[in-house]
């Protein structure tokens, strides 16, 4: 019985592939590229995490979970993990709320076409600016003798060690990452905004709904797909934060911005391939798990609706 069912499934699949062979061809090409350039290095990276670092390219001596156990005993790893979580916890809501507000403003009918284009560009350009370029400019801006301190001094205020004190350095990175990414989230929200049927607002208006009620019962539920997408993407993005830490602070001062990705890189730089890939693997698993949870929660909410 099972064999018959399998055979009929295979037949169905065969006829489906035959019918849409161009579609399957294009998808297959992409799948091959993904496997070769995406999944294969990932698998190798996981494999490396079980090897003794200085044998990765030679005898490939397996040491089981030793790299992981060493990391679990490393206080710098735990500090880095907590720091990455803190940074993500601050950055995700900050970016999403800012993007929602910006999208709301950009969707306003009071903006002329030209003004809307200008503001859209202004918000989105940081996202397409190369990461390194943006980071270098902000680093110069916040240096001890940078433009920010010069401005403060002109206002009669004392200069601040933006990048030389733990708290302010982290704050600078939160700000730079907000500047960098909020444009993308805004555009996604804005696209979703533009899909909302205006007649729903008119009907609500006729029913005497106030502005807040319209937002609460029409806008917000309609934005749920964009919200889920943005939340998941932002979470992944900020858990993996690397460039700003590498360019602006070198993980400092005193490891105050030593995010997991940067910590893995610094291990790699010292040719400690085992630890570097173990950190990358743990970060990968953590992100996958939390993304699945997030998507499941987003999905459940939609199903309930």
């Amino acid at each position, binding site marked *: 019985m099972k064999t018959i069912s399998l055979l009929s499934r295979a037949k169905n699949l065969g006829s489906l592939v035959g019918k849409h062979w161009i579609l399957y061809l294009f998808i297959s090409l992409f799948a091959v590229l993904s496997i070769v350039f995406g999944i294969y290095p990932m698998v190798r990276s996981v494999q490396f995490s079980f090897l003794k*670092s200085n044998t990765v390219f030679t005898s490939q001596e397996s040491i089981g979970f030793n790299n992981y156990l060493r990391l679990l005993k490393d206080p710098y790893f735990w500090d880095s993990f907590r720091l990455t979580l803190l940074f993500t916890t601050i950055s995700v809501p900050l970016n999403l709320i800012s993007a929602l507000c910006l999208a709301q403003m950009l969707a306003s009918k009071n903006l002329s076409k030209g003004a809307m284009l200008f503001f859209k560009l202004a918000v989105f350009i940081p996202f397409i600016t190369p990461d390194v370029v943006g980071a270098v400019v902000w680093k110069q801006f916040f240096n001890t003798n940078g433009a920010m301190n010069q401005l403060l001094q002109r206002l009669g205020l004392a200069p601040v060690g933006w990048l030389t004190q733990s708290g302010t350095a982290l704050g600078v990175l939160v700000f730079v990452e907000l500047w960098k990414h909020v444009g993308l989230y805004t555009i996604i929200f804005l696209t979703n905004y533009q899909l909302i049927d205006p007649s729903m607002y008119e009907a609500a208006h006729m029913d005497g709904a106030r502005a807040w009620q319209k937002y609460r019962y029409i806008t917000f539920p309609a934005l749920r797909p964009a919200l889920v997408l943005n939340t998941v993407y932002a979470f992944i993005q900020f858990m993996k934060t690397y460039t700003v830490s590498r360019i602006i602070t070198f993980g400092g001062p005193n490891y105050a911005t030593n995010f997991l990705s940067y910590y893995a890189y610094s291990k790699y730089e010292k040719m400690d391939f085992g630890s570097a890939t173990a950190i990358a693997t743990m970060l990968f698993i953590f992100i996958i798990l939390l993304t699945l949870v997030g998507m499941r929660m987003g999905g459940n909410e939609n199903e309930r609706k």
Partner: protein
Amino acid sequence: MKRFIVVLVLLALLVNFATAKGTVEETAKETVITIWYEGGDARLPFFKAVEAEMQKDYPNYRIDAVTFDNATFMTKVLQTVTATGGVDLVFNDASRLLTINQQSGGGFADLSPVFNTDPNKALVTAGDLKLSSADGGLVVYPINRSIAGLGVKTDVSGVRVTDETMPKTWDKFLALGAAFKAAGMPGFTMHLGSDPGQVFNLFLCGSGMSDIWLNKIPECQIVSKLEYYKRVVSVYAGANAFWDKDATSEGFAEMYNKILSGSVGMFRVGNWNAGNWDKPGSGVGEYTVTTWPSMEVGMESGLVLLNTRGLAMPKNAPNQEAAKTYLRYVLSKEAQSASFKTMGSCIDVSVVDTAVLSKNQKIFFDASKKLFPIDTYVAQFPYFPQINEVFEKGLIRAFNASPALIESTLIELNSQVNKAIQENK
């Protein structure tokens, strides 16, 4: 029978002709020596100059030299040395090549036999050999040296830099740093975002000390040199600190930017920097290079030999004989002259016309100045990366500690390094 003999003769002639042709081809056969080097295309003329010298004797040898940035170079060479093969010689700082040698379980060949027959071997000093060797063998064939001195700006209004005020001693260094600070600029800069140990090499080795954080056993030496560690850290974190505060979040590139904008009083100057920095419009402004201050009365004061740069030959190099032949020419006068022209440095200082040296290049070719090599541990202990990580983390803690906690942080670091040694031994 007659016909048979004719056929035989014809065959013999044919074979002879074919064999003769083969020999001609063999003689003319070209051997390509593949070289990978760090440092960009500007260094290519050096490798070409060596090739030109070699081709006078070996016209069928030629090189194919390809450059990589450091990060790519390190992993690519490590992979090649340990697995894929295909490269004959690799060029970089000796410290990096020794690291690859260690990580690859001794993937580079001992070049001592080649060196011992080199007619120019007398040019190479004991210091050069110390920085280029591992496990009793010569891993890196030295070509030139990275030497560092202390640069002092002389064009800052309000700061008098004279023979009297030059930072020959630690106290004078502190006084001059304070003067720069009073004039509105950091008195000193050296990056701390990466390689925070280098500054101790400069100050402690520059005073003639050795085994500055590990001895040969190994045991941590920080406590035995605690006073000097405290002094250096205090320039950054102490009550009267004048070190550029941004240094903890900076690497080489940022440090160079600061120097090239003329915004720090004292800084590291390499022999590879001085020629360019002396050019008008370099941005550094007026400055002079001197030896590192002696940390104590009675101690010496000298320049610091940070590294040698040279070539290593992987054990799996496909053209080993040709590669060894190439090495025999790197210390020749023509090659050394090309090394000076492309990298501002060479082993054979006699090829340098001192009259054409720029003002601040001169000190690096002044035989009267002491030259102290830094310690090299990478080749001595297989677990060096592990203890070095502990050392660097501890230094970063010390630089970020409040002045009152600098000493205890350094003492704690001494114990942590010893603990790491025991755990990894």
